[in-house]
């Protein structure tokens, strides 16, 4: 079996779960003897990796590079008209390059790559698999979603032979908002390569509370700051780390100042892989107050780093992890209560991190690849 995968991000250039998912998926498919032909947009960074059975083709030219060389990516700046042009150019080139190659199945990831998949299906008659990591509604936290993107997503869902989502919650959303056929949608939870993370290590208990994610409405960083202000009413010696970059950074800094907590908040900006590992490990609590979160791989990474975790109830990850706190993202009193309790009662954190780490054992990427292969057979 040889599969053509159309991706958008690939490490080291990534802004979220899609990039991690694509990398781990192709790596593990390759290991299982599935031939992978991966198309990704050309960019200045070097994406080539020595992956068994995987051929990576960078499509397009640097002029149509969706990744901005200043380091902050187009996603974070919102969609400009040039972004849509870039997407269109990428899709056209994918179709052109693919017509010279052999493959048995087409697998697209999110709306940026689906038009090419539909065109290739039409031309070759090969089955089309469409993985949706997040919808336009998710990414915009339901605030002003782009109608044209929703249309692209809807068309892709209609024309795909099989749709993969990363949680049951997401599947329901596709059925409700996109009228997806229930029988055509498979749920494959994201995973974590937990051995890459340190597991249970001695905590310094420096009272560090971590937020890590794109600074957009979707991830709920403002709820994190409001919870922080409440925590500080009870515990004065706490440091809140906001890691990641994004459009809301200036607004969040302003927010921290007006809440009077700026001395207790650190905005780290972009973190390298190594810094990321360090941040997860140093934290006494990881908080993911996402407004919309189809899965939430970072929660698994925090758990793999031996850090007690608080997640939004509606996050896909909360369908799979029991040993964590689950909260309503808007209930900042509840979030603050739980943060204070984790900081005060160390036995709680010890118990939670040990048990949640145990839960990761069934959540490797190997499983994701295996379930994806089963999905290919169905398609």
């Amino acid at each position: 079996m040889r599969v053509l995968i159309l991706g958008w991000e690939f490490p080291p250039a990534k802004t979220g779960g899609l990039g991690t998912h694509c990398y781990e998926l192709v790596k593990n498919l390759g290991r299982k003897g599935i031939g992978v032909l991966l198309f990704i947009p050309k960019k200045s960074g070097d994406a080539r990796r020595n992956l068994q059975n995987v051929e990576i083709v960078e499509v397009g030219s640097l002029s149509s590079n969706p990744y901005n060389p200043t380091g902050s990516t187009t996603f974070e700046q919102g969609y400009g008209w040039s972004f849509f042009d870039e997407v269109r150019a990428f899709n056209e080139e994918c179709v052109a390059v693919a017509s010279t190659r052999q493959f048995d199945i087409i697998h697209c990831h999110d709306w940026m790559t689906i038009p090419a998949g539909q065109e290739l299906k039409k031309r070759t008659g090969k089955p089309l698999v469409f993985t949706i990591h997040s919808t336009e509604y998710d990414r915009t936290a339901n605030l002003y979603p782009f109608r044209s993107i929703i249309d692209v997503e809807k068309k892709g869902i209609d024309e795909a032979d099989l749709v993969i989502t990363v949680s049951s919650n997401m599947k329901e959303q596709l059925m409700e908002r996109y009228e997806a056929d229930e029988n055509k949608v498979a749920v494959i939870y994201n995973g974590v390569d937990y051995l890459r993370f340190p597991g249970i290590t001695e905590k310094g208990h420096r009272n560090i509370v971590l937020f890590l994610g794109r600074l957009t409405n979707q991830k709920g960083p403002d709820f994190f700051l409001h919870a922080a202000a409440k925590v500080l009413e009870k515990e004065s010696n706490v440091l809140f780390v906001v890691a990641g970059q994004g459009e809301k950074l200036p607004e969040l800094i302003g927010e921290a100042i007006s809440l009077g907590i700026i001395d207790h908040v650190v905005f780290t900006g972009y973190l390298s892989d190594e810094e990321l590992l360090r941040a997860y490990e140093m934290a006494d609590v990881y908080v993911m107050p996402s407004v919309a979160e189809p899965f939430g791989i970072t929660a698994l990474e925090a758990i793999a780093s031996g850090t007690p975790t608080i997640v939004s109830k509606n996050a896909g990850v909360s369908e799979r992890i029991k040993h964590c706190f689950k909260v309503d993202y808007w209930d900042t009193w509840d979030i603050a209560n739980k943060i204070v309790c984790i900081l005060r009662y160390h036995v709680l954190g010890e118990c939670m991190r040990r048990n949640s780490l145990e839960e990761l054992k069934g959540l490797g990427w190997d499983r994701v690849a295996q379930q994806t292969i089963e999905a290919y057979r169905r398609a």
Partner: protein
Amino acid sequence: MASVCLYFQIHQPTRLGKFTVFSEKVPYFDDDRNRKYLERAAMKCYLPTNATLLDLIDDIGERFRIAFSLTGVFIEQCQKYSPEVLESLKQLSDTGNVEFLSETYYHSLAALFSLEEFEKQIMLHRGLIRDLFNQGPKVFRNTEAMYSNEIAETVEKLGYDGIITEGHESILGWRSPNYLYRPEGCKSIVALLRNYKLSDDIGFRFSAPWWKEYPLTADKYAKWLSACEGDCINIFLDYETFGEHQWKETGIFEFLETMPYEILTYENLDFKTPSEIIEAYKPVGVIDVPKVISWADIQRDTSAWLENEMQRSAFEQMAKLERSVKTNRELLHIWRLLQTSDHFYYMCTKWFADGDVHKYFNPYDSPYDAFINYMNILQDLKRRLATESKLISF
């Protein structure tokens, strides 16, 4: 001849209200929830089952004999929310066919941290049972049938004739639970051991379609009992088995209504209460239980309440207040309500990931939520103890 000993346990914890680090002057206990749960259990289980048992006694007469153990916290809640349940229990008591057992008032784990506190709670419970039913209990059952040599000795010293625990292989070896045994180190008290196989056939397996004996009928069950060797067959059940754990639709009430008649068709079977068993039979051997056992779960130990570090830490911190809390009557009662085993059970992480089979009536989303709520209340109680005791000393 073997005697069937039916004993029913009734308990409802006083569940805690939501209490956060921000809570001030918020009540510790969730009266609304406690009322709701009690009323529901009264409607589905207590009232109909009491009525069934009363009918059976009316009809069969003195040949049908049963025993109850009611926790003090259950009785307190009945007094507040459902006095008719107590009325019907009194009617049962008035028949003379019903024995009431002794236990700790608070369904507590006191035996595991302070024998002094343990005794006090037993005495409180004795007083309550005497007031309500005019009976002085002679047989003791500890919370969740927790038992050890030490607990048996303590209970013997308090003058009891018998003590109830689990008839598990870990203490019996090859021996049968259908006899009386003498606790190691004791001279007069005897142990009645629950026949867990025959008890669980009703309590757990009654409506289990995967069970090869499903459906369980009263005549089949009576036949099994009649074939048993031994002096006493101890069927000890949570009362909520009737109508709550086993819903009405499973036919559990029809089973209860016919089972005594089926049993009495066998000449080698009769019914006796625990005290009557102790009078009728002699212990056949000694059981030696140095480490505490219970009737809970597969492990039959205390791990459902005191295994993980949250449970141990919460328990230790509660226990540490013993000396200081005794100066303040109101806070003493609250402190004792916080000893009820259920609070620690809710913090159990053992089977949480598989979807705990014991979720029933658990008010928390997770063991972690149970722990922080308990700890926040305990912290607040400590604060009150410190400030209110100071006021007294001035």
